């Protein structure tokens, strides 16, 4: 056993930190957008930052060199992800979606042309994808998507509706799961397409999220023509491809690092704030709660490290990723809840309030953390996976 990073890895962490210190724009720090809080201005900064990261090879460090990656080790990627999140770099879920979910599937199932065209551009930071899986009647039960794609000459013609598509109003392409064989059993008639969001017939309608921001959308497809060459992998093999894509490296280290930062800020706050004539940090209850958060976040971090370590050993974690996600998502909610309680009345102040403390991050987090543990496979689905795949409990 050895819980240390190697010297080279530690040096890499320092390099990343140094770089982030120089490169995170001041304006971004002022705006301080949390997850799902994009604005036009913050999005523009983020897109610029993606390209900068791309130049370093740090946007998609895992990819093969021929498609613009660095083939960076699992451990260094873990470190990179940890530092990006801890330092609140302008990198949001759009990168997770595009770089960690979509592209690995393209690299695995795509044609040479698709790999060259999309992976390379994604690695440079030029292209962002959104994901079109969910529909009004297909949430957790993703295999019941109804949006149809029908062959017509050199194209497929797509009709139907997607929902909850994050960044559909900002993305260049959609990674779209549709039904190509309505007569087959529901898992066997799904295909995946790459769809240019500028294609005629696509209508994007905003949905305002709980943070009062526009991050996700309804997307309508009316006779949208997509060239056949945009089919990814085999026709009707989409369910399998989607399942694989959902299973790609998900260590959840980013959430643990985000929590780490806010727990440290809460500790600072407790040291600096006087209540009832003494520093908050002297209050036994506050100490106990902050210590418990630190302990729990250590669990979250170790669960995430475990995933990266397993990959580095050539193993393929499955239920382990689910465990990490469930744990850290629920911990994020606890962190927000306990954090707000420690702030007392100030806890409820929203961003922009004159008296807001810690930039109202905890109040915002109490809202945003509701999405972790729902999107990308709910915690109930993840617990099903742990029980059935991890512990071998019977399905029926």
């Amino acid at each position, binding site marked *: 056993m050895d*819980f240390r990073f*190697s010297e080279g*890895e530690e040096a890499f962490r320092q390099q990343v930190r140094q770089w982030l210190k120089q490169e995170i724009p001041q304006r971004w720090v002022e705006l301080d957008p949390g997850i799902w809080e994009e604005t036009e201005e913050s999005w523009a900064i983020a897109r610029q930052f993606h390209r900068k990261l791309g130049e370093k090879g740090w946007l998609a460090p895992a990819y093969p060199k021929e498609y613009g990656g660095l083939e960076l080790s699992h451990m260094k990627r873990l470190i990179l992800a940890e530092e990006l999140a801890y330092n609140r770099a302008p990198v949001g879920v759009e990168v997770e979606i595009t770089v960690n979910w979509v592209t690995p599937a393209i690299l695995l199932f795509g044609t040479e042309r698709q790999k060259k065209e999309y992976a390379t551009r994604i690695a440079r930071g030029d292209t962002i994808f959104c994901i079109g899986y969910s529909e009004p009647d297909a949430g957790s039960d993703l295999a019941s998507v109804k949006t149809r794609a029908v062959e017509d000459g050199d194209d497929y013609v797509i009709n139907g509706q997607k929902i909850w598509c994050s960044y559909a109003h900002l993305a260049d392409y959609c990674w779209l799961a549709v039904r190509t064989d309505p007569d087959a059993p529901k898992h066997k008639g799904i295909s995946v397409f790459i769809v240019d969001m500028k294609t005629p017939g696509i209508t994007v309608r905003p949905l305002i999220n709980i943070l009062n921001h526009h991050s996700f959308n309804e997307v309508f497809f009316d006779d949208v023509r997509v060239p056949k060459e945009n089919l990814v992998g085999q026709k009707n093999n989409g369910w399998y491809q989607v399942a694989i894509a959902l299973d790609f490296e998900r260590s959840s280290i980013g959430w643990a690092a985000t929590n780490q930062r806010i727990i440290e800020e809460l*500790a600072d706050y407790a040291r600096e704030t006087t209540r009832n004539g003494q520093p908050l940090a002297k209050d036994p209850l506050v100490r106990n709660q902050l*210590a418990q958060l630190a302990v729990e976040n250590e669990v979250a971090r170790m669960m995430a490290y475990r995933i990266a370590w397993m990959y580095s050993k050539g193993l393929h974690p499955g239920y382990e990723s689910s465990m990490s996600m469930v744990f850290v998502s629920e911990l994020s909610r606890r962190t927000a809840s306990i954090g707000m309680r420690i702030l007392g009345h100030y806890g409820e102040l929203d961003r922009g309030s004159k008296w807001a403390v810690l930039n109202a991050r905890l109040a915002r987090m109490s809202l945003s953390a509701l999405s972790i543990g729902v999107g990308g496979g709910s915690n109930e689905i*993840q617990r*099903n996976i*742990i*029980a059935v795949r991890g512990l071998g*409990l019977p399905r029926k």
Partner: protein
Amino acid sequence: MDLGLSEEQEMLKTSARDFLQKECPKQLVRQLDDSEEGHSPDLWRKMAEQGWMGLVFPEEYGGSGGSFLDLAVLLDEMGYNILPGPFFSAVILGGLPIALTGSEEQKMEFLPRLADGTTLLTLALTEPTAGYDAASVRTEATARNGEYVINGTKLFVPNANVADYLICVARTGKGDQAESSLTLLIIDARSPGVRITPLKTIARDRQCEVVFDNVVVSEKNILGRPNEAWPIVEEVLQKATVAKCAEMVGGAQAVLDMTVNYARERIQFDRPIGSFQAIQHYCADMASDVIGSRFLTYKAAWKTSEGLPAAADVAMAKAWTGEAYERVTLLGHQILGAIGFTMDHDMHLYYRRAKAGQTIFGDADFQRGIVARGQGL
């Protein structure tokens, strides 16, 4: 980074599991739980043959020079099989202080006999305040012509009822700080004036009251330097805390395995109860608690093994593992239904130990106090 055990450690783990399954079946666990001594000399002899008691002691003292991490692996399996008896108190609470601070003579006298199974030791530290702080130590050792006279009452001394020697933490002066006047003394448990009374506990661990009533020992029995015992005690406590975590991790793993097996086999409404989501989700949470405990504990054990500063990691491990083990056993009971509420089923053996493990060496609140200090609070 390497989060896995070495090949040798895997072998130690497997051989320990096999040995304990064979030599310490639950029937024996129950028998010992119900016995007066809570100790089987026969099993102890066999464990000595395995080299377990000498695992972490240097070869020149009859040990095999294993690492603390090796010991954690062994304790993990002992917890899995809930090994009763004085291993923990003899090796960790008794052996470690001697290895850490004993004179050459003392090491030669005690460690080989501990390793070969002929001598049992334990640590007499806590007193009626039941705290692990220096100020709680009131037992006095008064110097008198090259001897010390010891008076006081120790509480929660594990396995004192079968110990040959007690390592007593006693106050030997009136230093201005509670920490600065404590001394370790090795006391023959059969000395006149030593009165040992086992306490009845729900965990059936042999916690004892030890009264020292004008007990006289030679100053040669001082372990380490007079008045400088506290740093040694702290080091032993820190190691004992991780060691206890390792045991608890094993126990929690056993409860998870036992529960999942039951959930696969128990049929209600024509299907295994393990196919009901409520049960599945309980099991998923148990698994998560076990893994979290495992990593925090092994991280602390690894740091300890490497001689790195580990106070905060040890406190985190204990804060988490103590509560997680309890949660796991509670869910285990829930999933078993009424069968878990019987003396016949093994689950309660684990639950009782989880409850005892939670408080020993400081409960989660106490440990969080240490963590908070590490956070600069």
